[in-house]
């Protein structure tokens, strides 16, 4: 009885294993060339372990300064995807500029159409607007496509410095740590990190590559439009290679070049892949 039981268990297991193997062997390829779908990068702004809430919630940074956030906007551009077969897919450049805006419903959804089916092991992008585009716009403003448009009503109107390119990353708010002085009316802080390297300014764009391997492998299929959930933690603006204190530097816009570059190093490290949805529709 015992033997019979054991034997039947083994037999059953073997059958299961074999049938599983067999099924694999017979499987039709998961995709064929020409299959395409959307890929969505969802930039979810958070403050540490909390979802970021504009205006009403006060947070405390690594230096113990309390602050709220009234505006958070940044450009994501020049997106490329690395396929596990070693090739790279580059989103056509004119369609590769996005403005993440916390004040807009779903303002962090970056939808990339027509991505060839395949498994992708990393996502790369620029935080900000690259130098060559910025320079080209100086002489031809028709190059200011999509959210770069700084004409009347354009999304870029509040993000563009005439003859100095774009504000790559903008965060504003108030902090009781900031003395109300001429330099900072009403205890406000303004982090406008721009410059692309023209006229002796630093290039404050930053490149990011986020690995999407293992359980985070991006699987684009004919019937799967993956969603890559990317967490952007504003707390990391204050720490990292540079410790940013609002009391000391409440305003960073077109001056303090060295410090803006240090803050740019911090924001380059604020993004991480939280998870990837590969749900079939």
């Amino acid at each position, binding site marked *: 009885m015992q033997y019979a039981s054991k034997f039947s268990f083994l037999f059953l297991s073997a059958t299961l294993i074999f049938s599983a193997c067999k099924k694999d062997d017979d499987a039709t390829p998961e995709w064929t060339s020409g299959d395409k779908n959307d890929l969505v990068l969802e930039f979810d702004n958070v403050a540490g372990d909390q979802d970021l809430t504009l205006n009403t919630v006060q947070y405390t940074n690594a230096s113990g300064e309390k602050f709220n956030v009234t505006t958070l906007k940044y450009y994501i551009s020049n997106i490329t995807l690395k396929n596990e077969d070693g090739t790279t897919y580059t989103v056509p450049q004119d369609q590769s500029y996005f403005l993440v805006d916390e004040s807009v419903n779903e303002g962090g959804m970056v939808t990339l159409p027509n991505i060839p089916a395949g498994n992708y092991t990393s996502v790369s992008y620029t935080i900000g607007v690259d130098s060559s585009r910025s320079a080209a716009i100086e002489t031809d403003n028709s190059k200011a496509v999509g959210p770069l448009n700084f004409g009347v009503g354009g999304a870029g109107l509040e993000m563009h*410095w005439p003859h100095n390119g774009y504000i790559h990353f903008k965060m504003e708010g108030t902090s009781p740590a900031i003395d109300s002085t*001429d330099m900072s009316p009403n205890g406000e802080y303004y982090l406008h990190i721009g410059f692309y390297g023209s006229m002796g300014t630093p290039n404050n764009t930053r490149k990011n590559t986020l690995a999407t391997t293992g359980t985070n492998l991006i699987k684009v299929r004919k019937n799967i439009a993956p969603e890559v959930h990317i967490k952007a933690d504003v707390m990391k603006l204050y720490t990292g290679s540079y410790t940013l204190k609002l009391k000391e530097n409440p305003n960073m816009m077109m001056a303090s070049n060295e410090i803006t570059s240090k803050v740019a190093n911090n924001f380059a490290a604020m993004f991480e892949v939280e998870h990837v949805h590969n749900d079939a529709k």
Partner: protein
Amino acid sequence: MPNRLTRQLKIGRFDLLIFFSFFWSCHSKTETDPIVPVPVLKLEFTRPAHFPQPVYDFSANPVTDEGAALGRALFNEGLLSSNKLISCASCHVQGAVFTHPAHPLSHGVDDRFTLRNAQPVMNLAWNRSFMWDGSVTHLDSFSLFPLQHPNEMDETPANAVAKLQAHATYPARFKKVFGTDQIEIGHVLKALSQFMLVCTSANSRYDRFMTGKGEVLNAEELAGMQVFEAKCSSCHSGVLFTDFSFRQNGLPIKNRSDSGRYRHTNALEDLYKFRVPSLRNVEHSKPYMHDGRFSSLESVVEFYRSGMVQRSNTDPVLLQGATPGIAITDAEKKQLVAFLKTLTDLEFLTRPELYK
């Protein structure tokens, strides 16, 4: 007869050959050296027919295409600031009626903040004075103030001129306009004035409606116009939507160090008085008030309805009811905002010749 016909035909063929070879030569020429002239967008000052005579004395600084184009280049020139990064256009952006979008206050060299909200560069030919407190009375001297102010461009006129003089193309451009390549600050100011003077806005839906150009305003906008005429036009009067006066409008004081026109006149009755701004293109010049405290037209109308604080010199025109302010119903508030949006002149906000 047949002979003549053949001859005619031959001539005809010959003509045709010449005709085609002409095309051929044209074609080959366009590839290297375009002979088709690119339409030149001329900069000029024209008084709109429904506007009054301008205040600016054009005889002392006649606007020319080249002069205004030079002014436009200077308007966009970072060299005029001490760190070479701040130009007039930094805080005066065309798409925002030449104001600073999303900036209650602006920031200049080293991110030092200005005292007040950047005002539009628009219809300045009709202004008798400039700044929120009217402290500058001639357009040609206006630009000296942002140029030298430590919180704006933080530069000396001499340094600014020296940088332009050392530039590859500016001396020749000044020579063409002012007859000398020895650049003077007066010429810099006059060129800037020429550009600012061509920034005329007179082609809103309201203008086309009033001048019978086939524009139709809807019922809400027309109702808003009536409310406006009854309750707002004593200050925002005439076709320029301002009487150019300075008034105490009951705005709660946020920054005591800004005493308004008093800073300029030292007269107590001018304490916390500010310019009555034009409302043309007001939809796109937010934020509003001298300190940019309101970010929507609705909040401005609401302030006049319920937010005023009476001072000893608050304008009597705003104190006619039981409480300070203007009686405006909810419906009228909506109508007013709809009417104010008819003052938007999209052509002005997008004219390519006004962009560097």
